[in-house]
């Protein structure tokens, strides 16, 4: 996990041209139906960046951010910070969403890549896609997709500090095929 996070930190810093510090807050592994989080029993919104990955290790990866933090980050990516006029709502703007997509590509892709390099595995992520919806619906849809072939999920809570601006990120990873792992326990 630390290797993946360090790779994401470095790539994000390159993209923004700013100092970025990543902190790993927690890592947990659980049965798919045992995940508990406050946003699972509410209607809070999230920005999600989804990637399917293939190769020696296959599975699903979802990066979720609180919309306000994602909007702040999108402004940073777009260089709007400090402008006199208020920028448009980044989450309603194609260009900002595109910037966020690039961020998701880096976060998920480099995170997966860092882990894969460390494990000496080849991982081939599909192009990322972004969406905004209720956090619970996004997460539950990820779990349903993963539950076809897997029973466990890895949850990573991290925080990226971009020039002092904290951006909490939740990353959910469901490996559906992993070398040396037992046969999938989903659909039987």
């Amino acid at each position, binding site marked *: 996990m630390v290797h993946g996070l360090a790779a994401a930190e470095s790539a994000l810093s390159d993209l923004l041209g700013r100092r970025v510090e990543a902190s790993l807050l927690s890592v947990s592994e659980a049965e798919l139906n045992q995940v508990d989080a406050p946003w699972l029993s509410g209607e809070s919104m999230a920005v999600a960046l989804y990637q*399917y990955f293939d190769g020696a290790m296959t599975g699903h990866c979802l990066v979720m951010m609180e919309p306000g933090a994602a909007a702040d980050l999108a402004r940073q990516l777009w260089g709007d910070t400090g402008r006199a006029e208020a920028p448009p709502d980044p989450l309603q703007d194609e260009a900002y969403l595109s910037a966020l997509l690039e961020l998701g590509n880096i976060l998920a892709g480099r995170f997966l890549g860092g882990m894969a390099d460390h494990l000496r595995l080849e991982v081939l992520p599909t192009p990322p896609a972004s969406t905004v919806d209720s956090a*619970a619906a996004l997460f*539950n*849809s990820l779990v349903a*997709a993963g539950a076809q072939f897997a029973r466990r999920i890895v949850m990573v809570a991290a925080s990226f500090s971009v020039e002092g601006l904290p951006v909490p990120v939740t990353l959910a990873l469901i490996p559906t095929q992993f070398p040396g792992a037992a046969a999938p326990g*989903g659909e039987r």
Partner: protein
Amino acid sequence: MTVVAVPMGEAAAGGPGDVLAIYGLGSCVALAVWDPETRRGVLCHIVLPEGTPAPGDPPARFAGPAVDWAVRTLGRVPPRDLVVKLAGGASVLPTQHVPMLDIGRRNLDAVFRELARRGMRVAAEDTGGKYGRTVFFHPADGGLVVRTAGGKEQVL
């Protein structure tokens, strides 16, 4: 009123004093089954279209066992006399490049198939689309309140 949240794969039954809720319904399907005479109802949070439940699995992990559980729980009347309402089965995640991940559509197909096998018809539905939903089922009158992530609300 007691609000009972129904997690993924679970199902719950309630009476006139209860509200059964599913927060953040994405590709999963909310199956609400109501007995108008007793004003008792069941809400199932169905995750996958098909499969064989393992020991310890919750009752609504798969469509078929979920419908069975609902009918069994409200077993006083023939299945065809129960009122069925559906919500969910959306494609919230942008997974169009991996068609087999379109669980929402497959879930809906499976639920309709399992209901038809038992002679049960759907009285109302708010299904499909690309957005999440939160549902509140009121066994007092059989109403299924569906709220989308954007705040739009309707009663089925």
